[in-house]
């Protein structure tokens, strides 16, 4: 006698440790296999785009910290670049170098969490992520030296950075940068050929190249699918064109490729920081900008290669002290577009690691 079966709906999240925040997946399951899935979010929507229209340009910098709170410096930098483009504000050389050093440290810090959390999802419970957090801690100490904060830094300003780096910063940075490659190698040795990681992540959650481009994916998600596209090279901002580094890419676009791209990007970030440290000039770190800045009428789109992908700000000014429109192009949101395609046909446990490998931050998805 044939057994009668039927598919059922499972609400995964919003409160669940594997959803990296408050994210809900409404999954239709056939046994353990995902046959349909709908991402549901908005639980962390704070209306930042609306709030920003009521604040001055400068008052909005702290809001950019609260988008992707695992990479606050990236939010700061992208917003400052957009305003500098809008109001045509020059940035001193020393500030440009400090920005690059800070932005690349932030990339390492964000990727450490991304990789650690991904392995957590894979079932390597807590051990890898605690190693990662141990290393990230050293970067947070550096950020604390320059900004006084450990999570929401509010460090960059239009025309530079809020203050010069303190004396103890450079020796501490040298130590971190000297140790980091050894740590990444150690970690890589431990995991790159790990049987369980390979079995879980290889060939799972594939995002084909054409689809990745069509959905507007960016960052490690796009590069993991084999597209060599990095804003730092393609549309070089700040002083990235002066540094030598490579763009790591994957081949098939599975979870393992995205994981590898992040590991390799951390090595490239170390390379960039070393070059920026050598070239760091003396001088001013901030151009004088009026407190109630009124950029000329017009619009500007400023973008950077944030750890999670292309982070852009589309600003419209009507020559008042507040932005007329403050739009955030959030990589975490757009990278989620193909989640259904990547997860359908796989088991629940695979859907979880596929989601984890995209590396999203809910603060940025919901805004």
């Amino acid at each position: 006698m044939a057994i009668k079966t039927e598919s059922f709906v499972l609400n995964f999240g919003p409160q669940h440790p594997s959803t990296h925040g408050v994210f809900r997946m409404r999954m239709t399951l056939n046994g353990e296999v995902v046959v349909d899935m709908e991402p549901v979010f908005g639980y962390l929507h704070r209306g930042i785009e609306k709030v920003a229209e009521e604040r001055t340009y400068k008052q909005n910098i702290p809001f950019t910290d609260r988008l992707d709170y695992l990479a606050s410096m990236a939010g700061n930098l992208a917003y400052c670049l957009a305003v500098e483009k809008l109001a045509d504000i020059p940035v001193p050389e020393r500030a440009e170098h400090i920005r690059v050093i800070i932005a690349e440290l932030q990339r390492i810090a964000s990727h450490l969490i991304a990789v650690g959390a991904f392995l957590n999802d894979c079932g390597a419970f807590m051990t890898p992520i605690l190693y990662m957090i141990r290393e990230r801690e050293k970067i947070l100490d550096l950020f604390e030296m320059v900004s006084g904060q450990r999570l929401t830094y509010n460090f960059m300003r239009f025309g530079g950075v809020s203050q010069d780096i303190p004396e103890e910063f450079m020796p501490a940075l040298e130590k971190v940068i000297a140790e980091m490659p050894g740590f990444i190698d150690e970690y890589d040795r431990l995991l790159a050929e790990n049987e369980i990681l390979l079995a879980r992540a290889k060939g799972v959650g594939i995002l084909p190249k054409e689809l990745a481009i069509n959905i507007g994916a960016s960052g490690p998600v796009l590069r993991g699918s084999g597209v060599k596209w990095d804003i730092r090279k393609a549309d070089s901002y700040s002083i990235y064109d002066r540094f030598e580094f490579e763009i790591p890419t994957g081949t098939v676009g599975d979870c393992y490729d995205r994981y590898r791209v992040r590991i390799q990007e951390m090595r490239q970030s170390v390379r960039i920081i070393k070059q920026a440290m050598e070239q760091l000039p003396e001088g001013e770190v901030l151009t004088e900008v009026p407190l109630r800045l009124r950029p000329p009428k017009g619009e500007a789109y400023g973008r950077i290669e944030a750890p999670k992908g292309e982070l852009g700000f589309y600003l419209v000014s009507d020559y008042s002290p507040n932005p007329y429109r403050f739009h955030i192009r959030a990589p975490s949101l757009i990278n989620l577009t193909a989640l259904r395609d990547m997860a359908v046909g796989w088991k629940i446990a695979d859907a979880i690691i596929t989601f984890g490998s995209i590396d999203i931050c809910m603060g940025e998805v919901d805004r």
Partner: protein
Amino acid sequence: MTVALSGKEIAAKLEKQFPGSVIESSEDSLLIKPESLLDVASFLKTTPEFNCDYLTTITAVDYRDYFEAVYILTSLEHNHSLKLKTRCHDRKNPSLPSVFSLWRAADLQEREIFDLFGIKFDGHPNMKRIVLWEGFPGHPLRKDWQGGN
């Protein structure tokens, strides 16, 4: 560096292909009629010379008299980009054609614009609110929104 395509040059080409589709063109942007949006977008995506295969972002701005939708199109091959704009004057029932069929990148972003501005995108397969809940009063990113208190 990403080259910004000249709206003026493209406008001249579009005028031959789709007469009357362009309203205004400047050095860095191109304003077209909403009826022509799909034709023009498809032309820019499929013509090898432009090959705009990547939709960087879509957003909307409320200029009180009209809504303006902004599409930033990019070609990963040629590394150039274009700011394509279109306007919608109806405030009661604003709607624009959806570019979902060309770029799936429009999926979540058009839904977000619908949620926050109330602009309906015709042809989008799943046009419903995304960050706010069903029944939320109005569309908060409109300049005349009076909700909240």
